[in-house]
């Protein structure tokens, strides 16, 4: 199967990287954060970039996936299958809870996608925003999810390999989707809904499908996130601020561009960390000075975004993809 070759290559490369990077705990931790954000950005891009609908509740889907998979994982962890070695069994349980978490989020995506049949633009955005808040309120008031204190004691299964394999899968998904009639139908809805409908595209059906697949991957990202945090609380990591962070990533990367979403998610996640490292250098040995310079991180971050939107409003990549460049080069040579 030629179409599965990339998967085999990715597994080999990621396994190698996993071994090579194992020594640096800081690097691994950062790479997990970055990877989760990349999955979130690429999946949100399916709704906001490809289909042209405006969702600002992506962290809500992430929360559904996180809490559902964390809970399931804790339950599964009490059982032993016996016939498999324990590490393999853990990974199997991990995989199952990720998929279930994703499916739970996907189901929520279906429910949220339904109003998108009638609502457009700002109105849809408000619905998705409301959904994100509802999820947090539900979690805060459900003892099973730990209430406001959050859920702790989730087994720490997430590894460099699992996160970046998820990244690989979601990027491959986005790319192949766009190269299929389904992806083209989504883009047609973005470009002109009336014309798409007149050309036989089931616009309502495709909008809902976009929501379902996008929130599935957001749920998986949430599940990965839950399995490397010692505790997940219905607070900052799943709030409206998080949703906006993801929106900023895909807008900065270029709406509709998967490459852009990946690059922007990596850069914007690492930028604050990089700035901190630089400021500590500037502050030298003076800890107090370093700390007060560190306060400037957020404003500088904001200014950078404003400057970027003024100079390049279409985002880093516009709607282009890295692989298109390769294709064009190949075409030129042939």
């Amino acid at each position, binding site marked *: 199967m030629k*179409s599965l070759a990339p998967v085999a290559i990715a597994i080999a490369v990621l396994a190698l990287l996993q071994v090579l990077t194992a020594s640096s705990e800081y690097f691994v931790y950062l790479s997990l954060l970055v990877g989760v954000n990349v999955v979130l950005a690429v999946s949100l891009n399916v709704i906001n970039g490809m289909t042209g609908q405006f969702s600002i509740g992506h962290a809500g889907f992430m929360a559904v996936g996180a809490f559902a998979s964390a809970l399931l994982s804790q339950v599964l962890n009490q059982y032993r299958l016996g016939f498999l070695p324990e590490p393999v069994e853990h990974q199997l349980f991990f995989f199952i809870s990720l998929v279930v978490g994703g499916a739970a989020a996907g189901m929520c995506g279906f429910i949220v996608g339904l109003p998108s049949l009638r609502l457009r633009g700002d109105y849809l955005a408000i619905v998705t925003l409301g959904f994100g808040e509802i999820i947090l309120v539900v979690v805060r008031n459900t003892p099973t999810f730990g209430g406001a204190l959050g859920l702790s004691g989730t087994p720490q299964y997430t590894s460099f390999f699992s996160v970046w394999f998820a990244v690989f899968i979601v990027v491959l998904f986005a790319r192949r989707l766009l190269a*299929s*009639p389904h992806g083209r139908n989504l*883009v*047609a809805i973005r470009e002109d809904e009336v014309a*798409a409908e007149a*050309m036989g*595209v089931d616009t309502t059906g495709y909008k809902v499908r976009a929501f379902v697949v996008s929130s599935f991957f957001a749920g998986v990202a949430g599940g990965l996130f839950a399995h490397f945090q010692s505790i997940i609380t219905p607070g900052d990591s799943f709030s409206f601020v998080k949703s906006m962070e993801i929106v900023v990533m895909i807008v900065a990367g270029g709406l509709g561009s998967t490459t852009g979403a990946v690059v922007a998610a990596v850069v914007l996640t690492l930028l604050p960390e990089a700035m901190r490292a630089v400021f500590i250098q500037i502050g030298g040995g003076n800890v107090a000075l370093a700390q007060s310079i560190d306060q400037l991180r957020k404003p500088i971050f904001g200014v950078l975004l404003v400057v970027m939107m003024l100079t390049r409003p279409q985002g880093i990549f516009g709607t282009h993809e890295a692989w298109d460049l390769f294709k064009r080069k190949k075409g030129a040579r042939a």
Partner: protein
Amino acid sequence: MSDALLHAKKVSIRFGGLKALSEFDLEIRKGDLKGLIGPNGAGKTTAFNVLTGVYLPTEGEVFVCGEKVNGRRPHQINRLGLARTFQNIRLFKELTVLDNVRIAVLAERTPLFDRTRVESLKRGPYPGRTVGSVLDALDNYRDWWRALLRTPGFLREEEGIEKRAKELLEVMGLSHRVDELARNLPYGEQRRLEIARALGTRPKVLLLDEPAAGMNTREKADLMVLIRELRSRFELGILVIEHDMKLVMGICEHLTVLDHGETIARGEPAAVRTDPKVVEAYLGEAPAHV
């Protein structure tokens, strides 16, 4: 039922108190080339929108290939064999010319279940309707997986789609523009691309909404030849809305004239042109004492 591909029976549509279209009758058979004319605001585009399912008729019935389509969604009506272009060009502007047509072209694939049976189930009573929807969904899931795994069958379909799209672009004289963005085409070519896109859906009836608007005289002459050619080549019935009298008189074999939503005349172009009601609608009422 008659063998009409498109049949409107006493279709009326009211927006609040305004009667935009009243008792509109129309029949298009295979090989017909009919025109729909009338002054601005006469209800021509409204008629198109009713036929294609954008508006629901207040009264009357619309049949496409013998099936009643009142209340069906535009994409369902399109799949029955009715395709259209738009007065104010509605291309997928940021996409390439090829992609514009590819979106319209349906893959030639063998569905998991018999299409006609699923469709009839979905239109029948419950619980059959639910079964139909589930079968439909299953078929759709399979199709997504085929696309994501890029199975050989899927790749073959994609090739078929591309080939068909390129054929249509060649017919419409756009072969040299395949990789350009739709918004970069000159006006006349955008109009032709819209027709190519409509043809992609394999229609039996083609509705053209002012296809010559904004074209120069030469382009219009070419378009007239082209429309005739399309009719015979794709065995279509064609209905044209047009302001340009010369073009309408030149190609249409039958005209329906609308004014304020009322059908004021119908028949052969030569007869319609001299009809006093038509002259009045276009030029205004003749002064009483001349």
